[in-house]
């Protein structure tokens, strides 16, 4: 008899019961799920055996332990069975064939968790802060009235809302508008004011040039975009390993800040660099100026200086759904990486006549048969149907983001970064319909959406995690945290994830007729 008693029932989760009436055929152990591990109840014994085996190997070969820690790349620790297996195969241990006789005496109370606990739109974490005791009371009152004002907007009581806005502007004078609660509240009061008094001009969308400038300063002032870029580049580099013709399709080129690092990494890769094609999508430039081409030329210069064969193509489109696959001119021999940094959420608005552009766009992406699709999105629930829910969530989200910005010492960058964020806030708060493009959705929703569109998850591993953590330590203030979330990486401030990076690949078209593997169900 082993150290564990297989006849003792594993106990069931004391959590809320699943709302669906049909129990999944192969439930996961509820208690381990509460600890963050997904192990099928029917596999418990097997997993235990593998752990025993792993232990034996580790005891017998202590030097191997350091190899596991330092060199091996770990993926998705929540899937305990495959994590243990990956360690065993790192140590060249063959898998144990499952012993059928051991399953019969197990007597688990089959009670599956309904799935991961939904990240509440109102994750309670707030960074609004004020300086002195006197300010504290004004700060409290400010938030209270702000919420009441949002509520009246939600109910359509616009004249009531207008009077609250007046009151709020008065309250703002008694708090420090430069930092903490004063600053964030200021932006939200401004947004509400625009919505109430000037809804037609509410959107703060500026010219493409202005947007690019603000974007650049947001990039410099805080690590969110840098994290997106280096996490994406790491995954793309790995996907391109062993291939000689590669093609990156960037859904939002901007100044091409992401690409020098990838070009340099490709230049240095063992075996030499591939032929790299980059297709950059961006808005059309006004008055004959071709900014896409200029960026392309600069990147070509860099590529030439490090001996990477490089070709650039710019695709001007004001919206992603205006892009047609033929514009990308993909070559059947090349390996494709699609790079989408905070672009997909803009496709979630729906037009009564055409439906939501996200579906056709995901379909043509899939039809490109990309080796990897990098998706980075804001980790927030700003696309809820009810205004008040969106407002509340946005208040929390952007407060946290502003708080993280406080650490930035470069004043100009910080101010322009704030303007960048302000535009997002205005869009979330003031706009409706197709004008509201900042329709951020959390990671779990993107998992469902991408899974349903025929993509499978490519896990980001401990090497990407470590690189991200190290770069953060080097370049940013303390308080940022990288977390692993079932194969994806998030970057957050003070334990609140703010941005999530995930990697995907298209499932081979051949598999289409079979039931799709869903992230939350078991493989059929």
């Amino acid at each position, binding site marked *: 008899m082993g*150290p*564990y*008693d297989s006849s*003792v*029932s*594993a*106990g069931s989760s004391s959590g809320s019961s699943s709302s669906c009436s049909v129990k999944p055929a192969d439930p996961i152990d509820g*208690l*381990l799920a*509460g*600890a*963050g*591990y997904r*192990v099928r109840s029917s596999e*418990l*014994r097997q997993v*235990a055996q593998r*752990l025993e085996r792993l*232990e034996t190997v*580790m005891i017998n070969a202590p030097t191997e332990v350091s190899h596991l*820690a330092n060199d091996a790349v770990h993926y998705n*620790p929540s899937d*305990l069975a495959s994590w243990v297996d990956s360690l065993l195969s790192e140590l060249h241990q063959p898998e144990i064939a499952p012993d059928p006789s051991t399953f019969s005496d*197990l007597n688990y109370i089959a009670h599956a968790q309904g799935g991961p*606990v*939904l*990240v*509440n*739109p*109102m*994750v*309670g*974490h*707030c*960074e*609004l*802060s*004020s*300086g002195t005791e006197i*300010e*504290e*009371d004004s*700060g409290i009152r400010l938030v*209270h009235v702000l*919420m009441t004002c949002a509520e009246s907007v939600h109910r359509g009581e616009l004249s009531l809302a207008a009077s609250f806005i007046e009151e709020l502007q008065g309250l703002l004078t008694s708090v420090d508008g430069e930092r*903490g*609660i004063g600053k964030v509240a200021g932006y939200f009061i401004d947004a509400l004011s625009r919505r109430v008094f000037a809804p037609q001009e509410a959107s703060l969308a500026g010219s493409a040039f202005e947007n690019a400038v603000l974007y650049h300063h947001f990039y410099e002032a805080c690590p969110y975009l840098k994290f997106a870029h280096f996490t994406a580049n790491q995954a793309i580099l790995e996907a391109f390993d062993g291939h000689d013709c590669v093609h990156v399709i960037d859904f939002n080129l901007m100044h091409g800040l992401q690409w020098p690092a990838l070009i340099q990494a490709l230049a240095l890769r063992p075996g030499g660099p591939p032929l790299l094609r980059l297709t950059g999508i961006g808005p059309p430039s006004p008055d004959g100026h071709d900014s896409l081409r200029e960026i392309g030329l600069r990147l070509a210069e860099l590529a030439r200086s490090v001996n990477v064969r490089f070709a650039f193509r710019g695709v001007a489109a004001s919206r992603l759904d205006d892009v047609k696959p033929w514009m990308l001119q993909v070559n059947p021999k090349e390996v494709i990486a699609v790079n989408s940094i905070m672009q997909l959420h803009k496709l979630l608005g729906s037009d009564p006549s055409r439906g939501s552009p996200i579906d056709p766009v995901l379909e043509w992406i899939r039809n490109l048969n990309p080796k990897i699709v990098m998706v980075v999105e804001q980790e927030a629930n700003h696309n809820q149907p009810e205004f008040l829910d969106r407002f*509340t969530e946005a208040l929390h989200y952007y407060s946290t983001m502003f*708080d993280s910005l*406080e*650490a930035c010492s470069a004043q100009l960058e910080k101010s322009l970064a704030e303007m960048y964020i302000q535009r997002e806030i205005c869009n979330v708060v003031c706009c409706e319909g197709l004008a509201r493009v900042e329709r951020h959705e959390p990671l779990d929703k993107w998992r469902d959406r991408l899974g349903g569109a025929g993509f499978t998850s490519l896990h980001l591993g401990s090497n990407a995690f*470590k690189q991200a*953590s190290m770069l953060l330590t080097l370049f940013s203030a*303390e308080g940022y*945290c990288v*977390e*692993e979330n079932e194969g994806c990486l998030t970057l957050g401030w*003070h*334990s*609140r994830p703010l941005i999530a990076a995930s990697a995907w690949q298209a499932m081979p078209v051949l598999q289409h007729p079979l039931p799709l593997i869903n992230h939350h169900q078991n493989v059929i």
Partner: protein
Amino acid sequence: MVVPLNTWILISNFKLAYNMLRRPDGTFNRHLAEFLDRKVPANANPVDGVFSFDVVIDRGTSLLSRIYRPASADGGVPSIADLEKPVGSDIVPVIIFFHGGSFAHSSANSAIYDTLCRRLVGNCNAVVVSVNYRRAPEDRYPCAYIDGWAALKWVNSRPWLQSPKDSKVHIYLAGDSSGGNIAHNVALRAVESGIEVLGNVLLNPMFGGETRTESEKRLDGKYFVTLQDRDWYWRAFLPEGEDRDHPACNPFGPKGISLEGVKFPRSLVAVAGLDLVQDWQLAYAEGLKRAGLEVNLLYLEKATIGFYLLPNNDHFYTVMDEISNFVSSNLCSVLLLGFLVLPFLSAASGNLSKGAFETASDWEMCEMIAAGVFYALHCQISVKGGAILR
């Protein structure tokens, strides 16, 4: 002497992962540790009657804590204003919890500890404040104790945590493994400070010493834990050059102090019969008794480390019941006292509720606004003086 299968898997998984993280030279693979640790976000949406949110207690050290509260009776989602709403019932215990991990592992947002704290809320009808203290080896003694002390001061100064009965915060310190050790040391610090700690709850607290005890020799390597790893963690936590008789490790040892005459809180100490450091834990309980302090010792013969993490064994329920009684027994005595005092107060009570406010509705409004406090406001006040805002 068996544990349920899923418990075995959980603890073995930790054991093997942790083996990879401890390096022979005393350094720690923090990146891999953070990658492997299963974390959960705070959730203001009540789940099983409990919601949670994170607060910044000290900006300078990025000291965070996660607060867990019982949801309101209607189970509705609390608004921003409700997160720091004053506690409702007459007496609400506030349990400051220090997670385990031998001073090096885990965080307040680790899934296992998030789950445990939620259970404590439901079980004890308490507010739980789980402290994300700094860990070894990057931050050795006394950093974890400093963070614990900061959290205690913070909790004690929250108006919304005061029990309406006596306008005081009813504080208990609790922790498992290294967290139990931290609870003891924070309670020690609190003595003479004027902050009253009503009780300590120590689950498998982490103590040790230079000599090898009988239980250490007998159980070395038998139930998930080895002497070698215990030694590693002490070397990682204690100041360099110090041995395990340092009072942080061995509070009643040769370098320890007697607590005789010291106004130290009453303690509930749970010891697992299959934990190799039980002799040190029992010696700790003895040390408290010798000083004339009240100790409730729970010896759970067949329990291993981590038995309280999953509700699939008798020991779990025994301990949860004991903790519940422990934090409410003060309640009983206060209620009794209140019962006697009540007639004297009732005459004055009619005026108390209005206090300095002009109208009853102003009072209600201010209560609601006070409820809508962003705790960071308070944090900022305590840090502001001399704090470097980066």
